[in-house]
């Protein structure tokens, strides 16, 4: 228990510190603390580039989450339902993106999207994030499908449901907690993601990219304010995702 507490303290200390300083009136992060203030939030959110980045991040996160969840679910279902040659290669390939170093991924994406003429656009970031997040969605959906009684889908066909109808009225409802959870998690992945976004964003910056730009000039408590906001948004999404996965219905 003690070790666990130490580990948690170690992991969360920087974030908690950042949160505390985001409400501190002093210009520099030093103790003793100054007065409580929301000044940094006000200044940060009064900057047009922050608002624009928020908007971009939101559009990218929601679209990429939708796409990667759909893609992840489809991939997982293919794995569940069909057997074919090279299936293990198919699964390995589908799960590959998170293992690629982010810098390489970012560079490759930049080169590829530039060739397609969409680097620097939101579409470009959405595509990059969809590729990166889809494996997570697939893993979650796959876990849920593995809990599904194989007779369930057959029972739907047996009762007169066509393949599509059975998918819509049985498989998707059964997987719904996983699908929502995958959506939240992929949205969080996209919302947080910096490296690849930095490579491909161009003028359409997302929040993490703007944070770095503010930081490059000077140490500014506004960073703490934006950071706290980003952290809480992602955490909420991840916690919701986690709750949906682990929630067990009482028998």
């Amino acid at each position, binding site marked *: 228990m003690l070790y666990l507490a130490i580990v948690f303290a170690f992991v969360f200390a920087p974030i908690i510190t950042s949160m505390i300083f985001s409400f501190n009136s002093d210009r520099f992060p030093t103790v003793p603390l100054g007065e409580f203030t929301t000044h940094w939030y006000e200044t940060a959110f009064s900057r047009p580039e922050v608002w624009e980045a928020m908007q971009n991040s939101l559009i990218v996160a929601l679209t990429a989450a939708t796409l990667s969840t759909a893609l992840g679910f489809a991939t997982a279902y293919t794995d569940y339902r069909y057997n074919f040659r090279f299936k293990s290669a198919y699964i390995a390939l589908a799960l590959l993106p998170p293992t690629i170093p982010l810098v390489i991924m970012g560079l490759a994406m930049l080169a590829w999207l530039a060739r397609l003429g969409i680097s620097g656009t939101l579409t470009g970031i959405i595509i990059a994030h969809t590729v990166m997040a889809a494996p997570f969605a697939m893993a979650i959906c796959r876990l849920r499908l593995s809990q599904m*009684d194989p*007779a*369930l889908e*057959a*029972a*739907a*066909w*047996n*009762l*007169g*449901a*066509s*393949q599509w*109808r*059975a998918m819509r*009225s*049985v498989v998707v*409802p*059964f997987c*719904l907690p996983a699908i929502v959870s995958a959506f939240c998690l992929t949205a969080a992945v996209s919302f947080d993601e910096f490296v690849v976004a930095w490579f491909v964003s161009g003028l359409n910056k997302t929040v993490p990219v703007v944070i770095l730009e503010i930081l490059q000039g000077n140490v500014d408590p506004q960073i703490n304010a934006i950071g706290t906001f980003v952290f809480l948004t992602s955490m909420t999404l991840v916690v919701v995702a986690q709750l949906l996965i682990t929630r067990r*219905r009482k*028998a």
Partner: protein
Amino acid sequence: MAEPLVRLTDLKKSYGNFEAVKGIDLEIAAGEFIAIMGPSGCGKTTTLRMLAGLEAPSGGEIFIGGERMNDVPAHERDTPMVWQSLALFPFLSVRENVEFGLKMRGLPKRERRERVAVWLERLGLEGFEKRRVDALSGGQRQRVALARSLVTEPKMLFLDEPLSALDAHLVIRMQGVLSKLQKDLGITFVYVTHSQSEAFAMADRVVIMGHGEIVQTGRPKDIFRAPRNRFVAEFVGRNNIFAGTVAGGVINVDGTQLPLPGAADGPAEIVVAADRMTVSLERPNTAALEAEFVSEEFVGTAIICYFEGPGGEELKAQVTERELELLAPEPGKHFFLSWEPDAPHVMAVTS
């Protein structure tokens, strides 16, 4: 002759090199309660799945109501099934589960509600409409599964080991429910099971399958009294099987001469049901096998005694409680087993 409801001709199914069903022929009449029985892996479930359109046959033909069904997809066949796992939809209420088939057929909501209500009442589930299926007991879920399959009023119902997950006392009760339901509805039940007692208690006709083939078809009583070969006799259970050589109306089993009037000379296998065996303390006047008592087992009101025969084979005899008291068996004690001359049934010898 009228066209049977279901006709299978030379039906085959193979998975790669494995032949699960090796060309079976079977006719099922309308209104019949038929049990397909066999050990696991005998092809009985595969046959049922082909009937329901969940597996495509590798060869042969399936006719239902005179119509060739081979290429009709599952959802266009009116062949509802009760699954071993029940396969109730866990995210739907009892009503929504039962309603499913009607909804797929596009019935208006009011008619769906009415028919669901009728079936829930019929199966003693009124008041459970809004319950979640995982909040029900095993027996209740069983009845929801039945209601879900029968609400569309099909001509036949397939049941794939539906009682295997239930407690023993519930099994007996559900057997009663199923038998009565089948008689009241007058529709065909095709019941797949590995349980001899379930099949024999309910079915009009039993089909015994082994290694992808039909070994014997007949009324439960006939299969029990006159199994075609050792496989059936062993599968049906509570039978004594003797292998020996017949010469002049007498069979020689491990040196013991037993009368077998009318049997052809040569090697033979005979079967004597446990309830046709007589156990005595003294050697009777008729020919008898001397056997060593091993154990007893209470089966309902009767008792099955197990013995070891002269050749080390297991022998079974059914006795009453009164007889058991008189015999006072103890492990190792010797008894004499005999039977009436008409008790043995001569089987086809399997190599």
